[in-house]
C-alpha cells in the first residue's frame, strides 16, 4: 500500500483504485472506437465521433472526481434530506419540455449546450447518500427490525418505482432498489431474512416466467413478457425480440477463447445495433475472447475489492456506507450488463460501468469515485 511505505502521509490514498478506474475507462475508449468507428463513419463521416464525445465526457468526469474527492463527504450527511426532493424534481423534469425522448423512452433531460443526461443517474447518487445517512441515523436496534429496515428502504423503493414509471426505465429503478438492499444487508446482522427473501424472489420469478411461457405469445403480450419469451429461447425469436441477444451470443461464440483480435469483430458491422452502448461487452468477447473478458471482469473485481477495503476502514459509518453504495452500484450494473449479454437474464438496457458509451453515466460514476476518494482521504494513518 502506498500509505504504508510513506510513514509521514496522513491520508490514505489508494492509487490502485484510480489506476484501475482509468484502465477500465481506457479500455472502454478503445472498445468504443473499435465498435463505433464503422457506424460513426456511416452516420457522421467521422470514425472517432463517439470516441471523442466519450473522451470529453471522461475528461469532465475526471475533473469532477477530483473536485468531489476534495469535498469532505460528511457534509452530505447533513444535507441528506435534500436528496429526496432533488430526486423527485429530477424525475419529474422529464415530463417538462426539458425531457427528451430517445428511442421511445422519455428518460433524458436536455440542459442545453448539447449536454443531456439521465436523471436516474442523479437519483442513484442521491439514494446512495440517503441510504448511507439513514443507516447511520437509524441506529442498530432499529435497523434490525423489519419496520426499521423498511423505513430506510421505503424512499429508495419509491424513487425506484418513480424512475421505472415516470422515466420508463425499469432497470435503473431496479438498480436503485438493489443498491439500497445491498446497503441494508451490510448494515444488519441478519442473514436468514435475506437468504429466504432471496429464495422467495427466485421462486416468484421462476413461477412468473413459467406462467408467461405457458400463457403468453410474442404477438399478444406486452414487450416485457415478449422479452422473457425471447430470453428463454432467443433463437426462436432471432428475427424479433431475441435479435440483439442472439447476435450478442453469436459475437461471444465467434470470439472463442482468445478472440478475433482488436478491431476484428464482424458483429459490430451492423449486426449488433449500437454495439458501443449496452452490448459492448459482447464485442469485447468477440475481439478479445474469454481471456480478455475475464481480465476486464477481474479489473472490476479488483476495483470492488479495493473499494471494500476503503469501506472497511472508513473513518465513520456514513463514509463506509457511501463506499458500499458505490460498490453495490458498480457490482450490480456490471453483473446485470454481462448477464444480459450472456443471456443469463432477459434483455434490458443496462450499461457497463466505465466502458459503455454514455456521457452522463461516466460523469456520475466518476463523481461516485470522487466520493470514494473523499472517504479514503479521511482514513487516518498513524
Amino acid at each position, binding site marked *: *500500500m502506498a*500509505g*504504508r511505505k510513506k510513514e509521514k502521509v496522513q491520508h490514505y490514498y489508494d492509487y490502485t483504485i484510480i489506476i484501475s478506474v482509468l484502465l477500465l475507462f481506457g479500455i472502454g475508449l478503445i472498445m468504443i472506437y473499435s465498435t463505433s468507428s464503422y*457506424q460513426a*463513419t*456511416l*452516420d457522421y463521416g467521422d470514425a472517432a465521433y463517439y470516441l471523442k464525445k466519450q473522451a470529453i465526457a471522461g475528461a469532465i468526469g475526471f475533473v469532477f472526481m477530483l473536485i468531489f474527492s476534495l469535498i469532505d463527504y460528511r457534509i452530505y450527511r447533513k444535507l441528506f434530506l435534500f436528496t429526496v426532493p432533488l430526486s423527485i424534481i429530477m424525475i419529474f423534469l422529464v415530463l417538462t419540455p426539458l425531457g427528451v425522448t430517445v*428511442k421511445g423512452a422519455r428518460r433524458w433531460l436536455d440542459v442545453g449546450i448539447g449536454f443531456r443526461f439521465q436523471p436516474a443517474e442523479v437519483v442513484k447518487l442521491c439514494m446512495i447518500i440517503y441510504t448511507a445517512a439513514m443507516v447511520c441515523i437509524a441506529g*442498530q436496534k432499529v435497523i434490525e427490525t423489519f419496520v426499521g429496515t423498511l423505513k430506510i428502504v421505503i424512499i429508495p423503493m419509491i424513487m425506484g418505482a418513480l424512475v421505472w414509471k415516470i422515466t420508463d426505465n425499469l432497470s435503473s429503478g431496479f438498480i436503485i432498489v438493489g443498491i439500497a438492499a*445491498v446497503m441494508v*444487508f*451490510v*448494515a*444488519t*446482522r441478519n442473514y436468514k431474512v435475506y437468504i429466504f427473501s432471496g429464495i422467495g424472489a427466485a421462486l416468484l420469478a421462476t413461477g412468473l416466467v413459467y406462467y408467461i411461457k405457458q400463457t403468453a405469445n410474442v404477438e399478444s403480450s406486452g414487450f416485457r413478457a415478449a422479452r422473457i419469451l425471447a430470453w428463454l429461447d432467443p433463437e426462436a425469436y*432471432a*428475427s*424479433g425480440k431475441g435479435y440483439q441477444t442472439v447476435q450478442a*451470443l*453469436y*459475437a*461471444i*461464440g*465467434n470470439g*472463442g*477463447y482468445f478472440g478475433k483480435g482488436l478491431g476484428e469483430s*464482424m*458483429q459490430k*458491422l*451492423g*449486426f449488433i*445495433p449500437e454495439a458501443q452502448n449496452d452490448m459492448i461487452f459482447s464485442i469485447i468477447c468477440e475481439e478479445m475472447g*474469454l481471456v480478455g*473478458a*475475464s481480465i476486464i*471482469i477481474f479489473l472490476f*473485481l479488483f476495483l*470492488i*475489492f479495493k473499494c*471494500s*477495503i476503503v*469501506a*472497511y*476502514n*472508513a*473513518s*465513520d*459509518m456514513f463514509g*463506509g456506507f457511501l463506499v*458500499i453504495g458505490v*460498490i453495490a452500484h458498480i*457490482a450490480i450494473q*456490471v*453483473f446485470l450488463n*454481462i448477464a444480459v449479454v*450472456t443471456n*443469463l437474464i432477459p434483455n434490458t438496457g443496462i450499461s457497463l460501468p466505465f466502458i459503455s458509451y454514455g456521457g452522463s453515466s461516466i460523469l456520475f460514476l466518476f463523481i461516485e469515485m470522487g466520493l470514494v476518494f473523499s472517504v479514503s482521504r479521511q482514513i*487516518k*494513518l*498513524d
Partner: protein
Amino acid sequence: MPKNNISNRKMMPHMRRKLATTTGLVMLAFGALCLRIYAINRDNGDKYTRQVLSQQEYDSIVLPYKRGDILDSKGTTMASSEKVYNVILDSKLAGVDEKTIQATTQALAKCFRLNASELTKYIKDNPTSQYYILSKKLTYDEIASFVELQNDTKNNPDIKGVWFEEEYIRVYPNNSMACDVIGWTDKDFKGHYGLEEYYDDILRGTNGREYGYLNEESALERTTKPAVDGNSIVTTLDANIQSIVEKYLEEFNNTYKNAYRDGNGAQNTGCIIMNIHTGEIMAMASYPFYNLNDIYNTDPLIGTTLLDVNGKAQDEVITEDTLKRLDTDTKYANLNNLWKNFSINNTYEPGSVSKVLTVAGALESGKISGNETYFCGGYLEKGGHEIHCHNRLGDGMLTVKQAVEKSCNVALMHIGEAEGKTNFLQFQQLFNLGLKTNLDLAGESRTASLVYNEKTMGEAELATSTFGQGFNVTMIQMISAFSSIINGGYYYEPHIVSKIISSDGTTVKNIEPRLLKQTVSESTSDKIIDYCNGVVTEGTGTTARPAGYAIGGKTGTAEMAPRTKRNYVVSFMGYAPANNPDIAIYVVVDRPNAAAQDDAKYATRIVRKILTEVLPYLGYPMTEELSEKEATELEENKLLLHAPKTVEADANNGQENENGEKVTNEEGTTITVTEGSNLTEGIQKEGSEPTLSPEEEALNAQEEEWKKRLESYEKDPETGYLIEPGTGLLIDPQTGALVEGDSYME
C-alpha cells in the same frame, strides 16, 4: 494493511463481516459470468462462429459491375449492359404490424400487378424471411412508380421492407447484327464466342459489395465498396457496312432457299470486308444469323443441316417438326454450330481464289516473270492423275494474266511446276496459310494439319494446290493474305478492336495496326492487281463489278471432298477501287442451293450488291460509266443518292465519250466491259508471235492437236451441249464445264 491503526469506532464488526461476505458474493457472481462465457464458447462456439459468417454473407449485397460496351468504329453500340432491378421483399420489416403489411402489400399490388392477399399471406407465413424475390429484371421505368410511393414518406409512412437489388443484363441493341463477331455472355457474364469471349477480361469488371443492415428504425444503413466497371472496346466494324453485308447475305438466302433441295440458300454464306492498309475488319458476317438477345431460340436452325449430338452432319434438313422431336443435347449441338463464326472457324478448300497466291508466289520467287505463255488442252497429267481444267474443252494458249482471268487450272499447274514444291510451300507459309492469323476473336481454327508440307506434298498435291484444292483454309486467312498481296506486300495481323476505353470514356489503350511481314514486293503486287482487274473486266468475275465502279478480284469454285458428291464452295475475293485498292471483300458461298453449284456467280452477285452500296457509303466516287440498265437499277434502289458527286463526274465522262465503247477513267487505264466473252477469241491473237523458239513450237503443235480435238465434239441436238467423245459426258460449250457439275479429277 494497517487495520489496527485505523479508527473503527463507527463501522461495526458485523458490518465489516457482511461487507466481506458481500465482496465474496460479488466475486462468486463475477466468476459465474466468466464460466458462462466459457460455457457459451464450449457449447456453441463453432455454431455461433458459423452463424456470424453466414449472416455476414447474407446481409451483404453484391454490387454488380457493369460489363463494358462493344462499339463499332463510329460509336454505335453493338453490345451494352443495362441496369435492371429485382424486387425483394423483407417480411421481417414489412410484417411489423397490420398497418405496414397493408400499406406495403397494396403498394406492391398496385405497382407490380401482384396479388395483395397472397403477399399478405406470404409475409404472415414467413415472418423471418428477409429475401423473397417478387419480380425479376425490371427496368427503372417499371419500378419508378413504386420508388415514388416509397420515398413519399409523408403520405406513405408505412411502406416498408421492399428494396431493389440491382443487376445488369447484357443487351444487344441490333439483335442479330454481327452476332458471330460479337458473341454473347451467359448469366454469370462470362463471354462466349467472338469478342465477348476474346475480350472477356477487358469487358469484365469487379463486383463491389455493400455491407449493411436494417436498424431498429428499419432504416437502411450501409457501407459500400463500389464495383469497378469493365472497360469498353471500340471495334473496327462499321455498323452500316455490316448491315449492308448482312442484308445481302440474307437476301441471297431468301432467293435460293428450297430452290433445289430443302433448306437454306447455302450451307453457309460468309463475307468479310477488310481495310487492306491496316488489317482492320470492317464487316464480318456469316449466314445463318442468330439473335444475340435470344441465343437459345432454335428458329435460325430451320433450314440448316441437322447435326447429331457429336456435331456430325446428318442427311436431313432441320424443319419445325424436327425441332419438336430433338432432345436437348442435340439441340445444343446444333445451336453450338450456329454460334460459331464461319469466317474464322470453318475450314474449306479455297479453290481458284488461291491462284492469286500461287501466281504471286511464283512471280515473287522469280520463277516466272509474268510474260510466259501456257497451253491448256483441258487437262494435264500429274503424278499419275489426269487433272482437269474446269474448262474441259481447254483454254488454249494463255498468258499468265489470261490464266488468272480465265482461272485456268492447267496453266496454274504449269506455273506451280515452274515454282517448285519448296518455293510453293514457303510462300504458303509466308501468306500465313496453316497458321493462325491471331485475329482478336475467339474460335479461330488451327489449320496446321490441313496444309501440305515437304513430306506430304507430291507432284499431284502440288498440282492441285496451285488452284486451291487439297489444302484447307479459313476465310480470315485468305483475305489477310490477299490484302497483303494487293497492298504492296504488307501483311497486317487482321484485327477487329482498335481501342479500349474505360467506363468513364478515357482511352486505356489504342490498338495500332500490326505489320507482321512483307509477303511480296511492290512490283508483284502491281502485277497481281493488273491480273485481278482483268478477272473482273474480261474474266470470270465480271458479274462482281458494281455499277459505276471498277474493282478487281478472283473467283473461286472449289470442289468439296468427296469429289463424287459434286458439292462446291464458290467464292469471290476482290478489292476496290480497282487501281488503288483500299478495301478487300471476300464472299464465300458454301454449297449453294442449286442443281449445279459450280458457279462463282453465286458469290460474285453478292459481292456486286454489297459493293454497290458500300462503295458510295465509303465516299468513293464513281469512275465508270453507267449503262442505262444500271442507272435505272440504281435509281430504283435510290442508291445514286449516296454519291451525288459521282453522278456529276460520271456525266462529264459520259459526254466526252458519248460514242466510245471503251471508257477511259482519270488514271488513264482502259477498262473493257465484256460480258460473256468468247472462249477462244482473245487467245489466238496473243498466241501467234513471229519468231518461235522450240518450246513455242511445241506449244503450237499442242494447240493444233487441241483444235482438231475440239472439232470432234458432237453437239447434242436437244440441249445444245457438247458430247465428250469416249466418255459421253455433256459439256457446256460456253464454260467448258461438265453439265452435271465439274470435277478436276476423275
